């Protein structure tokens, strides 16, 4: 009798499992809700993405209809990865990324420390400080290029002249042009980093600092030994966002320098754009875009790995 009951139970469990897998009429419900969004996503995201991957394996030149479109495997990738122009662009992009991430963390931290003091008008001032991040990078690039880094009429040269310094040919020389792009991107990105760090700072408990103060820690020590380790996760999140946004840098260098004096200031995205929209070598351009994507994923995976190892309090 016991064995019979056991078997019935087993069969019932199997039934439930099969029904759950196949879905009873009620279990179809979620699919109806996600259907419209899913269809649109397939159409405008998955389809183009797959198409881009496929194109990157072809040799396709839009301006040469006589040249047959053929499958060339990873030739595009190898050609691009080994071309000095792409390597230069990659190095430029990575340098911008590193410089921007580090500077934004430092400056953002400074702003955040400032804003977390309680002072009169704090809310208003916070709302004003975050304004740069909602401005289009194009507009910011235009403003900085025309108003600040202009050699004869720029404000920066004017202020320098007040200090007795000669005007600098900002956009005509390589390193000053890079500095111009750097400052513009910095101006745009700091508020976002500041917001993330500020919310992290505000979530820290006071009790630890009070305990440390009793033990005789100076404020500077408590900053480096308490604040930063506790904020590791927040700092990592801010770094991820900034890295992703820097690796795809296009708008600001394009507007401020159009690729730099000559071709010294090209980022990978600008190169991919030129390859596909000016030289019309679609396969090559798509493969460059894919390389940017792969690099972004590698960075993101690295960061997420670091976050997993981080022990949360």
């Amino acid at each position, binding site marked *: 009798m016991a064995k019979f009951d056991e078997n019935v139970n087993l069969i019932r469990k199997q039934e439930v499992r099969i029904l759950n897998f196949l879905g009873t009429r009620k279990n179809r*419900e*979620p*699919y109806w*809700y*996600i259907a419209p*969004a899913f269809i*649109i*996503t397939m159409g*405008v995201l998955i*389809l*183009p*993405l797959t*198409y*881009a991957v496929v*194109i990157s394996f072809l040799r396709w030149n839009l301006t040469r209809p006589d040249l047959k479109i053929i499958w060339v495997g990873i030739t595009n990738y190898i050609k691009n990865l080994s071309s000095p122009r792409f390597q230069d662009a990659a190095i430029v992009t990575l340098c911008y990324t590193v410089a921007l991430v580090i500077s934004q963390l430092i400056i953002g931290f400074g702003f955040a420390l400032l804003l*977390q*003091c309680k002072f009169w008008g704090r809310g208003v001032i916070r*709302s*004003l*400080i*975050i*304004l*740069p991040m*909602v401005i*289009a*990078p*194009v507009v910011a690039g*235009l*403003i900085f290029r*025309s*108003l*600040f880094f202009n050699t004869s*009429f720029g404000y920066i040269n*004017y202020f320098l002249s007040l200090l007795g310094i000669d005007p600098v040919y900002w956009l005509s020389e390589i390193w000053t042009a890079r500095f111009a792009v750097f400052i513009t991107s910095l*101006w745009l990105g700091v*508020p976002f980093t500041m*917001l*993330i760090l500020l*919310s992290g*700072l*505000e979530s*820290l*408990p*006071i009790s630890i600092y009070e305990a440390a103060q009793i033990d005789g820690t100076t404020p500077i020590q408590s900053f480096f030994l308490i604040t930063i380790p506790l904020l590791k*996760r927040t700092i990592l*999140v*801010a770094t991820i966002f900034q890295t*992703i946004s820097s*690796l*795809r840098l296009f*708008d600001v260098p*394009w507007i401020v320098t159009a690729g730099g004096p000559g071709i010294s200031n090209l980022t990978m995205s600008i190169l*991919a*754009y030129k390859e*596909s929209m000016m030289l019309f070598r679609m396969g090559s351009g798509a493969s460059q*875009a894919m390389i*940017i*994507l792969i690099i*972004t994923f590698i960075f993101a995976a690295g960061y997420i790995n670091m976050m997993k190892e981080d022990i*949360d309090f």
Partner: protein
Amino acid sequence: MTKTFRNNIFLWLAIIVVLIWSLFPIFITIFTSLKMRDIAFKIPPLWIFRPVFSNYKSVFTQTEFGKYFVNSIIVTSSTTIISITLGCIAAYSFARFKFFGKNFLLLAFLCTRMFPPIILAIPMFLLGRYLNLVDTRTLLICAHTALNLPFVIWMMHEFFRMIPKELDEAAMVDGCTRVQGFFRVILPLTGPGLVATAIFCVLLSWNDFIFSLMLTGSRAKTLSVAITMFTTIEGVEWGNICAAASITMIPVLAFSIVTRNYLVRGMTLGAVKN
């Protein structure tokens, strides 16, 4: 944790420096756009003058700026409406049900934020050529939605998860169908989150440059590409450049000042474990 500075003067000095750093470019653009053409770029700059709107007038009359402005508005509002509507319904499903592939899809949606826009712009350009959609607002809306929709789903599903399931069931007990319960009960509760997500969509679409650059020509151009038109006539039309930049900036600035709390909340969501 709030630190108190010992010396108030240093605090306020620092605040003033930070404010100047953040606001000076914005201020100087609007400032210059109100100057008459001939004094716009005098060095040393004139700080006191009579403001005029002639630059704005000439921007709108000399070029088809009005059309580009309308294009921007149409594209931005369309993509926001589509993404939010479809995204919320899908996000509700992600938050309430368990189904095959749910976690994978959520992770995939989060990953779409990592895509450089150019990887979507290139195939969209080619597909647009086949469908004769190049230089139309439709194609641009599709491109923006491709980036917006997954993000809306991911963000809204987080908000929906925070609302207890009991409320759904209570609504259904009271006679709503699931859908009615969603629109009448759950959605209003996520109001702030919804606004924050909508802000993201608006910002992404209005400030976008690369999709407009690659997918539009003269008919469907948006503001971001239109303002680059002025850079070719350098050194002459300074007032126009500043006026055009101001026209592009001011709606977004006003918008973000009005919605500043939602903006801050949306930006920091998920960044800190609260």
